[in-house]
């Protein structure tokens, strides 16, 4: 392992992707994802990775190219953000339905309109119902670590998972930031990740159709198969994280990371890079004697209900902080966390806060405010950090 290189996040992710030996890479540039595939195209052009880098005219085609290539039996990689991911969405559902373990990075960015290129997690959260495993990283090191694990999880034969995996990282905050990252050697990656071994593939000597027509007599079973397989993947995700931790000497958290949670009466639940800020607030409040912790969700789909119940049932207050909103309802993560406790003995108060949309900074003040507000009263989809000096037509003007 090459220890401690100072790398821009996008470069580290591109190198990690190349170490996984994808045979076909296809992507279309969109901010803030572009850097990753620029680096990858350079790696391929330099002859450092034996792969086809296929330029396309849009994200729908990029996703279709990796779908087709994986159907033909090779490992693939793609990457997108925001509007690009939305344009892919039709193919995203097809990839899951065709049980092709495609791996992609979603560099999280807000969704238009209005046009905004900065970070929140609305884009990938919209895709939560697609049948993809979704893993959310806190930093560049974890994005790389999850990328390697993603191939191994999705391609697992033992339970015939064959599920696509989306590794999500916060736009700008991670891929554009320079951090020290440890990348494994090719030998270490090869020892951890065996070559892709498809269960079915397109083959002219044994022709098949994939994702074939299923009428009302069969379609529902295909959805049931995906639902059951998603649930079965939970222990595989945990096992691959344990394997990773022992192989590379660095902890990978599997379903979620618990930070000062075990004796906490107030537990924040959050995903992605804002967990770093929240951990600082947790430390500060702990110093003042408050029993606060944070559970950082890594695996959002499948949603680890049982493990979360066990981890959170001792809390009095659960404070969900998320960078997304199901407009007209609540934060999707808060809604999911509430479902964990439905009809169960533990009944914590579960408040939901929306922060950091479209690149708004998530400050320590925001986090303190949300925690203390949730300790006083139940909140649902409460927007934290709104500018009070702006007049909002139809709302207060």
């Amino acid at each position, binding site marked *: 392992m090459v220890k401690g290189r100072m790398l821009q996040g996008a470069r580290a992710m591109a190198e990690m992707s190349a170490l996984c030996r994808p045979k076909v890479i296809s992507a279309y540039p969109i901010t803030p994802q572009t850097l990753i595939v620029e680096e990858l195209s350079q790696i391929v052009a330099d002859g450092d990775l034996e792969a086809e880098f296929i330029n396309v005219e849009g994200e729908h085609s990029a996703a279709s190219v990796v779908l087709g290539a994986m159907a033909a039996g090779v490992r693939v990689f793609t990457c997108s953000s925001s509007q690009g991911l939305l344009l892919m969405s039709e193919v995203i559902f097809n990839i899951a*339905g*065709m*049980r*092709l373990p495609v791996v992609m990075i979603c560099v999280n960015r807000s969704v238009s309109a209005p046009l905004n290129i900065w970070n929140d997690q609305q884009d990938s959260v919209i895709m939560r119902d697609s049948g993809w495993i979704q893993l959310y990283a806190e930093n560049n090191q974890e994005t790389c670590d999850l990328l390697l694990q993603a191939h191994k999880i999705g391609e697992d034969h033992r339970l*015939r998972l*064959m599920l696509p995996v989306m590794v999500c990282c916060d736009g700008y905050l991670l891929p554009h930031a320079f951090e020290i990252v440890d990348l494994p050697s090719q030998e270490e990656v090869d020892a951890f990740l065996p070559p892709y071994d498809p*269960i*079915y593939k397109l083959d002219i000597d*044994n*022709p*098949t*159709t*994939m*994702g*074939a*027509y*299923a*009428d009302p007599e*069969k379609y529902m*079973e*295909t959805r049931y*198969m995906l639902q059951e397989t998603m649930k079965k993947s939970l222990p595989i995700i945990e096992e691959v994280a344990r394997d990773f931790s022992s192989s590379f000497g660095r902890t990978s958290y599997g379903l979620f990371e618990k930070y000062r949670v075990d004796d906490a009466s107030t537990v924040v639940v959050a995903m992605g890079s804002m967990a770093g800020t929240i951990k600082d607030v947790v430390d500060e409040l702990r110093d003042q004697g408050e029993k606060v912790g944070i559970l950082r969700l890594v695996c959002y789909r499948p949603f680890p209900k049982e493990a979360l119940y066990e981890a959170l049932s001792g809390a009095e207050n659960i404070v969900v902080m998320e960078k997304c909103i199901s407009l007209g309802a609540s934060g999707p993560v808060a809604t999911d966390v509430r479902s964990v406790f439905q009809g169960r003995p533990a009944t914590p108060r579960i408040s939901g806060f929306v922060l950091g949309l479209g690149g708004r900074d998530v400050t320590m003040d925001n986090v303190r405010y949300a925690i203390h507000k949730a300790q006083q009263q139940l909140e649902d989809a409460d927007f934290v950090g709104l500018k009070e000096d702006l007049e909002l037509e139809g709302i207060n003007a």
Partner: protein
Amino acid sequence: MKITLGTVTHPGGSRVNKTGSWRTANKPHFLHQRCVACNVCALTCPEGCIFGTGQNTYYANEDYCKGCGICANVCPVGDIEMIPEAGEYG
């Protein structure tokens, strides 16, 4: 019947889907009186489910026929007519 991962099927696998149940009102009736075996009905059938080997031998496989009526419309000798389905439509 087994549903494979990703509904992978082999050629001809869709034959198990008996889509003739989608037919609503009418189905073709081959009169077998004036047929000249021109094969136009079979060639124009969008389901590819009309077969025949010579004059007055053509028939539609009702497991797949949708009752669109193209065969009756194109038959140059008027040897195919559309008739109501049996049962509640008959």
